């Protein structure tokens, strides 16, 4: 029996990246929304809603990056220099934001500074991630075993648009999370914001979806070629279904369904990107199998991943369970 280890690992790393995007997505979103909600007590409430889980969410980023280096070293060594600026900006913004998260509680005088750092860091990190994603989708120039493009190749109209789209999308995730976790003033503000963010997010998903096929003929063949279209067509249909549930949930003032629908939008968009990319890991030239390290490296790490990833998921789930229910502005969780 032989396992297709590169394919298994591609699935695992895709899962880690998706886990990162949806989990850190909503807490980055809360940071993006920070300037839109007034009053220190309300800000405390917002922060409390993500404080117990945010750093657990961020560890998926380390897992994704570390996994890429271990399993697809060629892809790691091409993608990182290609996305040099957005990656570095993202890292700095996340450092900034993570520290602001903690120091905001330590001081009264400097609190507004840390508030500002938290909002700024969250927004910049989200934007940089969106730009990096757009740059990846539009393709990376490779010669031999290295990145062959310039230092500004990542910067295009398309990647700036995907950057803005991810900020809006994270804001929607953050707003629907707040609807789920808060009450009274913050929740009312979150509904208002979500009413704006939801149609905007859907429109931006639409624009990116229509724009993508024009970037490369491979994408056209993948989405509109026969018989691929049969496999691809459920994705946009499901997006429409999620959009309907989201808007219905917001109008009917439901608390849980908007968040789940917003998460579904992200998962479906991610699957859409997967359909576009497969079998490449670096569009449009390096496949999963080209980039994979030898099988004995993959199997060596797989043993650990099979044992530890379920444990990690278990305690992540447990911490969400422990901190379930509504948050309060003062006192955090007791």
């Amino acid at each position, binding site marked *: 029996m032989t396992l297709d280890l590169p394919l298994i690992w591609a699935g695992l790393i895709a899962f880690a990246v998706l886990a990162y995007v949806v989990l850190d997505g909503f807490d980055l979103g809360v940071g993006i929304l920070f300037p839109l909600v007034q009053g220190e007590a309300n800000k*405390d409430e917002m922060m409390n809603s993500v404080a117990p889980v945010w750093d657990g969410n961020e560890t998926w980023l380390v897992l994704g990056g570390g996994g890429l280096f271990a399993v697809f070293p060629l892809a790691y060594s091409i993608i990182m220099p290609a996305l040099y*600026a957005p990656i570095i900006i993202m890292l700095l913004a996340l450092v*900034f934001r993570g520290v602001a998260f903690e120091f905001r509680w330590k001081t009264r005088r400097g609190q507004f500074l840390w508030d500002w750092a938290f909002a700024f860091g969250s927004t910049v990190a989200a934007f940089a991630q969106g730009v990096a994603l757009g740059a990846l989708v539009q393709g990376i120039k490779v010669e031999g075993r290295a990145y062959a493009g310039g230092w500004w190749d990542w910067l295009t109209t398309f990647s700036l648009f995907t950057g803005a789209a991810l900020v809006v999308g994270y804001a929607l995730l953050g707003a629907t999370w707040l609807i789920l976790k808060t009450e009274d003033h913050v929740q009312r503000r979150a509904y208002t914001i979500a009413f704006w963010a939801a149609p905007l997010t859907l429109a931006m998903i639409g624009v990116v979806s229509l724009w993508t096929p024009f970037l490369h003929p491979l994408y056209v063949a993948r989405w509109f070629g026969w018989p691929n279209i049969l496999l691809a067509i459920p994705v946009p249909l499901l997006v429409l279904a999620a959009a309907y549930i989201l808007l219905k949930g917001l109008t009917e003032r439901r608390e849980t369904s908007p968040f789940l629908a917003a998460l579904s939008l992200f998962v479906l968009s991610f699957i859409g990107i997967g359909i576009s990319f497969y079998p490449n890991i670096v569009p449009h030239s390096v496949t999963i199998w080209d980039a994979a390290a030898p099988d004995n490296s993959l199997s060596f790490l797989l043993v*650990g991943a099979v044992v530890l990833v379920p444990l990690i998921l278990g305690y992540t789930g447990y911490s969400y369970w422990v901190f379930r229910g509504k948050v309060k502005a003062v006192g955090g969780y007791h």
Partner: protein
Amino acid sequence: MLPDITALDLARMQFAFTVSFHIIFPVFSIGLASYLAVLNGLHLLTGKAVYLDIFNYWKKIFAVAFGMGVVSGIVMSYQFGTNWSVFSDKTGPVLGPLMGYEVLSAFFLEAGFLGVMLFGRQRVGEKLHFFATLMVAAGTFMSAFWILSVNSWMQTPAGYGMNAEGQFIVESWWAVIFNPSFPYRLVHMVLAAYLTTAFVVGAVGALHLLKDRSNQGARVMFSMAMWMAVVVAPLQIGAGDAHGINTLEHQPAKVMAMEGHYDSHPDGAPLILFGIPNPEEKRIDYAVQIPYASSLILKHDLTAPLAGLDTVDDALEPPVAILFWTFRVMVGIGFAMLGLGVWSLIARYRRQLYSAPWLYRAAILMGPSGFVAVLAGWITTEVGRQPYTVYGLLTTAQSASSIDAAAVGTSLVAFIVVYFTLFSAGLFYIFRLMSKPPHPGEPGLPTDEPVRAGGIMPAPAMDAEGDGLLNDQGGRA
């Protein structure tokens, strides 16, 4: 367009800066996690409240240091790809899985139990809380184990082959992980972490004893730290000697540069205590030396021949001017630590340990010395590996991405600005915590902040004047 060499230098500076910044926190975390586990265990065994007080005191400091270690570590995990992409491609199949294990096992073990250790004593009971503390300490060891295995493999590669794409591949995981220099480096580094932490704890104890000799918590801290100095400093000197002999076997040029041996000595080499390296003339000016001592230390034989850098190709010569000094700084601090330990033994013997102001002043002065020694030691081993990243197989110049000097320079400046801003805030909180004396009934972490699930940095809230703690019920109005 600046020439390529500058871009490479900038990438090296960026790595040196970010890794030096990062290493400070793990060193402190490794030592402090074990210290916390010991305190927790002693409290369980003896039931003495003072141990719990000190535990709570250092726990707060641990949380801040750990958080800064995690944040600065994320940057390290991406830097290999951005600045050293050729290195990443070639060594990924060997080093990637080891780093993957570091992330998987250690990080999640720590993150999983850290919340319980910091907040959970009342919630989970004493025994489970002690277990969580042990797990956090174990997690710091796992981190050290895997990362030092990676670094040691770069110094003394083993168990590898090459494939058609020019990548290193693994022939034997056992040989890769337990490569020739790994056991020595691991012991040397863990002892360094213990010593460093002991001297920080000792300095804080001494500071409060200077102010108030009767402070029970400060007495226990200081006494424990001084015992550590007495026991661990000589062990560390022995471990360092063994590590040096191992280095001589696998990386002779590094040892020649450390010792300042430009010339070969066929019948016994002197130990150069001090001097000024003169790279142009290839000699050590104004050398103060002990005849035959270098051969005695490295070969355990007075007249054993020792080759010098005259046997090494100029292009493969590590920078003597740096290594000569960093090595001496490290060794000097090691012996100074031993000296302080002996001084404390004499004070103990004369029953003056708790009335020795000059000893306290010396201990405060020595407080940060462990960090200096650790940095000097790492500079010695890393610069001594030059011109290679993987010793003898892959040069540093070949390892870099085809980087643009402007891009690396800009990001270097950004890192320096952000790190100094944020980490000075962190250090400010740590110093603030250390400036308060430990007292009976030492509170744990403030409960007016949210409880975290993972790697967290709660320091006590400050009031508007910026001094003193809010009381436990104070909350935030």
